């Protein structure tokens, strides 16, 4: 009866003793998330199904984050539509324009627990796998079905275990680890698969680092990006949730493939335009940058803000370069204020905005124009992702972003 972590979670969720990769199961959903951009279509689908009430008003979480505050009449209309739906359905967990990016807000506010199944109408829902949750992105029609029935079908995924060992060097971070993995296996290197991140490096990582890895599992096609729940997970959850939970880990003799990485000599990495798997060491690239963006659900946490502030303190953002700092949530923003980080950013000449997705998806603030170069701590650098299709987006860690803002070109943190 050996099973992988995903098989165990999906077996539990579908009321079976055993499930196997390849099988299609109907799973009960613990939490469903839609945000301001994908919510309206899910609501439209839900109305088409014709069920009057959602399956469970306490299990739906609705954060506004992609276009907050509204930047156009169209986005204001989407917000109005979603607020109306929340009210109509008495949805308990609604976070209006002031709370922050969905994938930061859900774990922070205790909606993510090990061993559960979470679906979100957003591809980076896999972030929650950092807590040992089977969490995956779905489209709006799938979400309409979840709203109506609380269930969704899944093909049980095969598993790849990424076994990562070694201590990271001072100027590197979890972002470099995941960019290195994606660069190695490719943008479709884990398509349809459950990715598990295990090994000594991962055990040493705190929750913030694990979220960086899980967040980007989708960039190699992964269905979920799982870390095993442990003491650090329990510590993180203390004070955030009082509901009981139970984590799962893969049996040693379960069916999975293993890929090993040693990160002790890893240098800072960079994803170059226009694909996330076009990865090079930072030391091999020299490129002036017009905009540096520190933020997003990948690297907009307090740890990233601290990393960047440490480098920016007493320095100035280079002439001809602009830097945008967007803490991922109200909690992160508030901690930045308490720790004096906002002042460091502002004194360095950076622009700090309210918690939101920012330029990450090229739909709100801080878009780039033709021929402009953006260095971003987010997770995607597709053509046109941050504005003009003639612009270029590079992806890096917060440390590389801060060092590059000071130099005005892509640079190694010292």
């Amino acid at each position, binding site marked *: 009866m050996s099973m992988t972590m995903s098989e165990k979670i999906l077996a539990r969720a579908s009321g079976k003793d055993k499930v196997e990769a390849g099988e*299609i199961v*109907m799973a009960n959903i613990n939490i469903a998330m839609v945000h301001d*951009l*994908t919510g*309206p*279509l899910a609501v*439209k*689908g839900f109305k*088409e*199904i*014709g069920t009057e009430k959602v399956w469970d008003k306490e299990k739906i979480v609705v954060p506004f984050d*992609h*276009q907050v505050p509204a930047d*156009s009449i*169209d*986005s204001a209309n*989407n917000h109005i539509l979603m607020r109306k739906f929340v009210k109509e359905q008495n949805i308990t967990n609604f976070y209006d324009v002031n709370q922050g990016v969905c994938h930061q807000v859900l774990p922070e506010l205790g909606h993510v627990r090990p061993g559960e199944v979470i679906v*979100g*109408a*957003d*591809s980076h*829902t896999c972030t929650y796998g950092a807590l040992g949750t089977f969490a995956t*992105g*779905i*489209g*709006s*029609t*799938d979400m*309409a*079905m979840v709203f*109506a*029935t609380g*269930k969704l*079908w899944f*093909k049980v995924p095969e598993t790849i275990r990424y076994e990562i060992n070694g201590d990271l060097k001072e100027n590197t971070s979890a972002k470099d680890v995941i960019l290195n993995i994606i660069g190695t296996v490719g*943008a*479709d290197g884990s*398509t*349809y698969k459950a990715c598990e991140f295990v090994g000594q490096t991962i055990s040493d990582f705190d929750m913030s680092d694990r979220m960086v890895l899980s967040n980007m599992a989708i960039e190699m*096609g992964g*269905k979920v990006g799982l870390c095993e729940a442990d003491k650090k997970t329990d510590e993180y959850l203390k004070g955030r949730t009082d509901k009981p939970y139970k984590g799962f880990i893969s049996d040693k003799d379960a069916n999975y493939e293993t890929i090993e990485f040693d990160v002790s000599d890893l240098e800072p990495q960079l994803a170059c335009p226009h*694909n996330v798997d076009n990865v090079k060491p930072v030391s091999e690239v020299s490129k002036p940058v017009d905009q540096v963006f520190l933020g997003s659900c990948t690297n907009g946490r307090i740890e990233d803000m601290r990393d960047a502030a440490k480098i920016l303190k007493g320095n100035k953002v280079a002439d001809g370069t602009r830097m945008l700092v967007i803490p991922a949530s109200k909690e992160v923003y508030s901690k930045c204020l308490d720790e004096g980080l906002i002042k460091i950013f502002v004194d360095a000449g950076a622009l700090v905005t309210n918690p939101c997705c920012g330029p990450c*998806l*090229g*739909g709100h603030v801080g*878009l780039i124009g033709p021929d402009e170069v953006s260095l971003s701590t987010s997770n*995607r650098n*597709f*053509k*046109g*992702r941050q504005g003009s*299709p003639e612009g270029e987006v590079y992806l890096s860690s917060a440390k590389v972003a801060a060092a590059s803002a000071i130099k005005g070109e892509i640079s190694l943190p010292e």
Partner: protein
Amino acid sequence: MEGKVWKFGNDIDTDVILPGRYLIYNDEENLSKHCMEGLDEDFDKKAQKGDIIVGGTNFGCGSSREHAPMAIKGLGISAVVAESFARIFYRNACNIGVPLVEAPGISKKVSEGEKINIDLEKGIIKIASGEEIEFKKLPPFMLNILNNGGLIPWIKNNPDL
């Protein structure tokens, strides 16, 4: 179904299929005007009802935005054939009733503008040269959803899940 081929490369992501700034639209008509805009601004004018998109590997990678297959559907594209698809896009397209065909090797065999014929039930694509390419048929579960016209009609036809 039979249609004219529009060819695209590998890793065609949802940001080029439907750029993020148009996610404010929630209807196929408005979305279709920006279909493939990241690669070809005039694609919506060139493509005709019934045409078929042929892509390389990892077609539809990236975001979960259903707006991307909706834009394709809105243009009247009858099917997307690719070497392989990204997972969320694959589900989304099926859920709204857009047939996807996974046919490894396809992009080397067909050229832009040629007419191809797809038989979903039999799992065969007939290309202009007359060659017949077999593809792996959709799992019965998904074919069933597609034959119902998408997930929502399927749910309505299966009230006691």
